[in-house]
């Protein structure tokens, strides 16, 4: 077995009296699509925010790509190679679609004020590279035609795809997606699934929070289930789906069998 890309070891976090996460440990292998599921308020987004440096864990630690991940600020997570999207889309609304992706290249480029003002050959080459890479990413997610529009003019599903393109522009090793299919119709979800598989095929590991059970079950290699801040199950989707604790968490006590019988939560 190869070394894991991400290891979360006993992560705990509380907000005031609410224990949002307690002792959560997961490991994600390189190249995996890993799903994080659970009812609302289970702590999934908190886990994302801890991983990407928005909050600091009360206890526990992360290991990433072979070394300790000690992020004090979100920008450090991006530098280490963890990119994310947001549950409630956070695009740069008044910047163009292309510019949104170009901002994603910030962390992998260098030009400073002097470079920008003098526009030497190095800066010009860098700008050209940013431009080309961003266009390629737009092509990849299928938004080339709308490159010059402000991003807030895009349809909901397109905004989600743009957020993914922007995250990919940071050259992530791990792409963390917070409910990428939320608000999408069946066609858009199917397209999203193909996109995520294409991203994986390029060697990017994916971690996703998702409520669309069909998408999770069809796409993820492994899933972990959170409930009230605890990990109650982990494994291949088909196994987890039959897990009594999971069914109980989603549907309450005494309905074991209903979910396994085909109903979805």
């Amino acid at each position: 077995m190869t070394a894991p890309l991400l290891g979360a070891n006993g992560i705990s976090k509380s907000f005031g009296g609410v224990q949002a996460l307690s002792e959560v440990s997961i490991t994600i292998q390189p190249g995996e699509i890993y799903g994080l599921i659970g009812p609302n308020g289970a702590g999934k987004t908190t886990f994302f925010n801890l991983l990407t440096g928005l909050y600091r864990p009360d206890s526990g630690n992360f290991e990433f790509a072979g070394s300790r991940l000690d992020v004090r600020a979100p920008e450090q997570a991006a530098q280490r190679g963890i990119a994310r999207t947001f549950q409630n889309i956070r695009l740069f609304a008044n910047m163009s679609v292309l510019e949104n992706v170009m901002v994603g290249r910030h962390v992998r480029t260098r030009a400073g004020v002097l470079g920008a003002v003098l526009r030497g050959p190095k800066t010009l080459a860098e700008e050209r590279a940013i431009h080309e890479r961003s266009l390629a990413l737009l092509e990849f997610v299928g938004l080339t035609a709308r490159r010059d529009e402000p991003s807030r003019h895009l349809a909901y599903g397109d905004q989600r795809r743009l957020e993914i393109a922007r995250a990919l522009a940071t050259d992530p090793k791990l792409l963390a997606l917070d409910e990428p299919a939320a608000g999408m119709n069946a066609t858009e979800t199917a397209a999203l699934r193909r996109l995520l598989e294409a991203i994986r095929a390029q060697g990017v590991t994916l971690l996703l929070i998702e409520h669309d059970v069909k998408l999770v079950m069809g796409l993820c290699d492994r899933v972990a289930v959170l409930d009230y801040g605890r990990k109650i199950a982990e494994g291949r989707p088909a196994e987890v789906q039959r897990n009594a604790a999971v069914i109980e968490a989603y549907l309450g006590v005494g309905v074991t069998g209903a979910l396994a019988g085909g109903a979805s939560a």
Partner: protein
Amino acid sequence: MERIASRKALVWTGFALVGVALAVLPLALAAAFGQAWVRVVNLALLYAMLALGLNIVVGFAGLLDLGYIAFYAVGAYTYALLASPHFGLHLPFWITLPLGFLVAAGFGVLLGAPTLKLRGDYLAIVTLGFGEIIRIFLNNLNAPVNITNGPQGVNLVDPLKLGGFSFSTRETLLGVDFSGPQKYYYALLALILVIIVVNLRLQDSRIGRAWEAIREDEIAARAMGINTRNIKLLAFAMGASFAGLAGGLFASIQGFISPESFSLLESVMVLSMVVLGGMGNIAGVILGAVLLTGLPELIRFTVVPAQQALFGRVVVDPEAIRMLLFGLALILVMLFRPAGLWPAKLRKREFAR
């Protein structure tokens, strides 16, 4: 292909015409209306520099700064203290102007550092306080050690001098008679062209995009790996440095500075130029500066004669009319062109819902 070529030719012809117009402007103005109007144009150029600097902070990075004039003061005092009889120092402008630029940038960072986590109203309040602090310091730093000469200000500030060539005296060059203000005009014009190019290039760069990203969504910007602390400090420093440069020029042109010139009203004026002209758009901001400097003068030159012609005496003080019309203009622009007279493309989109 031919079309593109002819369009390019058209653009270059336009540039050439504007260039010629700018070159003969002070001569034509002086011939037609007198030297006073050359001074007004110089003032407009100084304000345009200020507005361009503030535009970086407010327009690009979205950080509301109500104490911006403090950096203008810092630049002016740096120049004046090092080139006047006050300390008996007479350093050349190529030391004092860049120094004013740097000191102001330093003060920009000084203001930026403690306010990094503030946004909107709260940032406005702190920056407003900062502007007042600087002014009050300048007012009171005449005891126990006299540094700024307090409310009396610094007098007899050296004019710009390049070798034996002084910008303040009348002189005949190549058969044309140039007055002091006219010579300053060309120095100001050259500097503002540099500042415009710097602004244009910054806006369309990795740094400019990072500023915009912070303005749009700070959390998302951080998630993209943008070090918001450094990028914000950079915006404060860049904006402040242009004000410092303008301040040094102001001191050299006026020959006299005092804390009175750096009141809150001045900060508000520069901010109005930025907002009225078109936040985030370099051309719009310059338009705002020119209009808000030129129109009050126009009123001053027309209101008194007009009243004398109508009523035989001056009924309303032109100064009062100035503020009245200024307020009216602001309200009208905000109602009918909320993104400014000449808005940035992006802002235009923002307001066109």
